[in-house]
C-alpha cells in the first residue's frame, strides 16, 4: 500500500491497461455521467441530421430517407430574416447596456469601504438572479399593467395610460431593462473576484507616483482585470445569435401585438417544430443548427482575436 505514490510517480511508464485497472474505481465513477453525455448531449447533437432528411413525429431519428438540403430554404423566408434581425438587435442592445453596467457597478461596489453595507448591497443585488423567469415576466406584467404603479405615475402627471407590454416600441426597453435588473448584481461577482486578486503594492506604487483615486482605477484596476473582461466579452459575443437566456423571457412576453419586434429565432424554431399542429421538425432543426453553428463560429473568432490581441482566451 505504501508503495502507491511511487508507482503513481512513474505513471508515464505504465501501459494504458494497467493504468485503467489501477484506477478502475475512478473510471467506474465516470461511467454513468459519460453515458448521460452520450445519450442526452451527443445523441441530440447527432440528431441534427434530421435537418437534412424528412422527419415526422414518431419516425426514426437516424432512419432512412433521402438526403436533402431543401430544409435550408428558410433563408428566403420573411419570418426567418425578421427573427434573425430581431435576435441580433435585442442581443446587441442588451450586451451594450449590460456589459458596461456590470463593470461600472463592480467598480462602484469596490469603493464601498463599509464592509457590512457592501455585503448587504451585494446580497440584495444577487436576488434577481435566483428568481424564475416566470416570476420576472409576471412582475413585468404587473408593474407595467394599466392599473400598475408606472401607469399610476403617468396618470398622476396627467399623461395617458400606456399598455406597455402590447406596444412594439416598448419591447426593447422592457427586455433590456428587466435583463439588467436580473443580471446587474450577479455580473459583478467575477469582476470583484478579479479585483480582490490585484496585488495591493500596485496601488501603493501608483499612490506614491501621485495618481489620484480615479487614475488608480483607470491605470491599475482596469488593466489588472482586463483578462476577466475579455473572457466575459468573448462568451457574450459567442451568444449574440443565440437566444440562450432570451428564449424563455421572450416566449413568455410574446403576444400578437409585438410579434414584429419580439419574435426571435428560437421562438420561430419553437413555433415551427413544437408549437405547431403540423410540425416541420426538419426545417426547425435546420434553423436551430444554423443558430448553433453561427454561434460557434462567432465564439471561435472572438476567442482568436482575443488571444492575438489581448493574450487571453478560453482555449
Amino acid at each position: 500500500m505504501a508503495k502507491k505514490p511511487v508507482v503513481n510517480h512513474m505513471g508515464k511508464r505504465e501501459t494504458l491497461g494497467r493504468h485503467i485497472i489501477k484506477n478502475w474505481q475512478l473510471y467506474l465513477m465516470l461511467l454513468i455521467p459519460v453515458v448521460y453525455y452520450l445519450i442526452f448531449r451527443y445523441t441530440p447533437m447527432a440528431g441534427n441530421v434530421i435537418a437534412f432528411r424528412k422527419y415526422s413525429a414518431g419516425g426514426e431519428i437516424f432512419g432512412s430517407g433521402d438526403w436533402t438540403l431543401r430544409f435550408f430554404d428558410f433563408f428566403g423566408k420573411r419570418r426567418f430574416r425578421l427573427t434573425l434581425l430581431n435576435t441580433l438587435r435585442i442581443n446587441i442592445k442588451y450586451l451594450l447596456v449590460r456589459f458596461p453596467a456590470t463593470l461600472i457597478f463592480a467598480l462602484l461596489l469596490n469603493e464601498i469601504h463599509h464592509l457590512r453595507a457592501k455585503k448587504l448591497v451585494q446580497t440584495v443585488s444577487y436576488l434577481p438572479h435566483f428568481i424564475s423567469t416566470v416570476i420576472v415576466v409576471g412582475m413585468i406584467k404587473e408593474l407595467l399593467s394599466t392599473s400598475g404603479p408606472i401607469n399610476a405615475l403617468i396618470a398622476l402627471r396627467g399623461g395617458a395610460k400606456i399598455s406597455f407590454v402590447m406596444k412594439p416600441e416598448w419591447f426593447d426597453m422592457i427586455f433590456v431593462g428587466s435583463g439588467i435588473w436580473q443580471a446587474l448584481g450577479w455580473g459583478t461577482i467575477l469582476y470583484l473576484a478579479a479585483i480582490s486578486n490585484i496585488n495591493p503594492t500596485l496601488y501603493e506604487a501608483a499612490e506614491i507616483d501621485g495618481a489620484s483615486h480615479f487614475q488608480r482605477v483607470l491605470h491599475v484596476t482596469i488593466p489588472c482585470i482586463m483578462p476577466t473582461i475579455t473572457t466575459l466579452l468573448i462568451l457574450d459575443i459567442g451568444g449574440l445569435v443565440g437566444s440562450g437566456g432570451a428564449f424563455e423571457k421572450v416566449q413568455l412576453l410574446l403576444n400578437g401585438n409585438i410579434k414584429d419586434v419580439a419574435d426571435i429565432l428560437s421562438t420561430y424554431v419553437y413555433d415551427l417544430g413544437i408549437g405547431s399542429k403540423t410540425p416541420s421538425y426538419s426545417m426547425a432543426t435546420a434553423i436551430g443548427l444554423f443558430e448553433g453553428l453561427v454561434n460557434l463560429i462567432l465564439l471561435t473568432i472572438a476567442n482568436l482575436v482575443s488571444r492575438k490581441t489581448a493574450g487571453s482566451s478560453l482555449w
Partner: protein
Amino acid sequence: MNRAEVKGTTAIHNNPVRIRESRGYRTFTVFNTIIMILISAVTLYPFLYLAAQSFSSQEAIRDGLVSIWPVGFNIDTYETVLKKGDFIGYYGNTLLYTAVGTTFSLLLSAMLAYPLSKKSLRLNRFLTPFIVFTMYFGGGMIPNYVLMTRLNLIDNLAAFVIPSLISTYYVLLMKSFFAGVPSELEEAGEMDGLNKFGVFFRIVLPLSMPIMATMLLFYAVGYWNNWFNAFLYIKTKAKWPVAYYLKTIISGTNDATQASESGGSIAANLKSCCMLLMAVPIICVYPFIQKYYVQGMMLGGVKE
C-alpha cells in the same frame, strides 16, 4: 486554504484605498452611496409591490391605488390559494421534482468532476474536451425534444429532471474545487486502507462542503424555477410544478381591462400571491449560502 487567500486579499485591498481621502473623493462617496441605495431599492421594489398586491383588495388594485403598501388589507387571497387544493398540489410537485433532481444532479456531477480533477488520470485528456465541447455546441431544441418524446418519457418525473441533470459549467466549477484539495490528505487516506471510493466519500466530499452547498443551491434553484421542461413534457395537470402553473396564469395579456386569454381574467392579487409563495423559499435560503457561492463562482474565473 483557498478561502483564507481570497479573504486575505480582500482585506488588504480595502485598506490602502482609504489613505488620504481628497475632497473630490468624499463627494464621490456620497454619490456612490446614493447610487447603491437606488439600485437596492429598484431591485427590491417589484417584490414589495407583489407583496402589497397580494394583501390588497381586488378593487384597490384595479383602480390603481396600490403602489407600495396594501390597500384594503386582507388575507383572503392567501386563504383562497392555500385552501384550494391545486396550488398546494403544484407546490408539492415542485418540492418532489426539486428534491429528486437535485440529489441526482449533485451525485452525478460530483462523480464526473472528481475523476476529471485528477491530473494523473490519463483518459482525462479526451474526457475533458468531450465534456467541455457540449458547452459550446449541442443539439438544438428540436433534436432534444424529439429524443425525449422517442424515449417515452412524457408525463414522467424523469422528463422533467433529465434535460438539466448535469450542467457542464457546474461540473467544471466542482472540478476546480476538487483539484484544490491537498493530495497529501488523499494519500494519507489511501495509506489508512481506504480505496478510491472511500477517499472520495470520506475525505474529499467532507472537505468540499462549500462547493457542494453552492451546487446544491444552483441545482435546486434551477429545478425550482423550471417551467419549460414541464411545458414540453408534463401534460397531466395534476403533475405540474408550480412554475408551470404560474406560466399558465400570467401568460396572455397583462391588462385587467383587456382579458384576451385565460391569464387576463385571473385577479392580480391572486397572481402576486402565487408568485411570492414560489419565490419565498429561495429568498429565505440564498443569503445564507452567499459566502459559498461567491467563492464557488470565483473558481470559474480562475483559469487552470
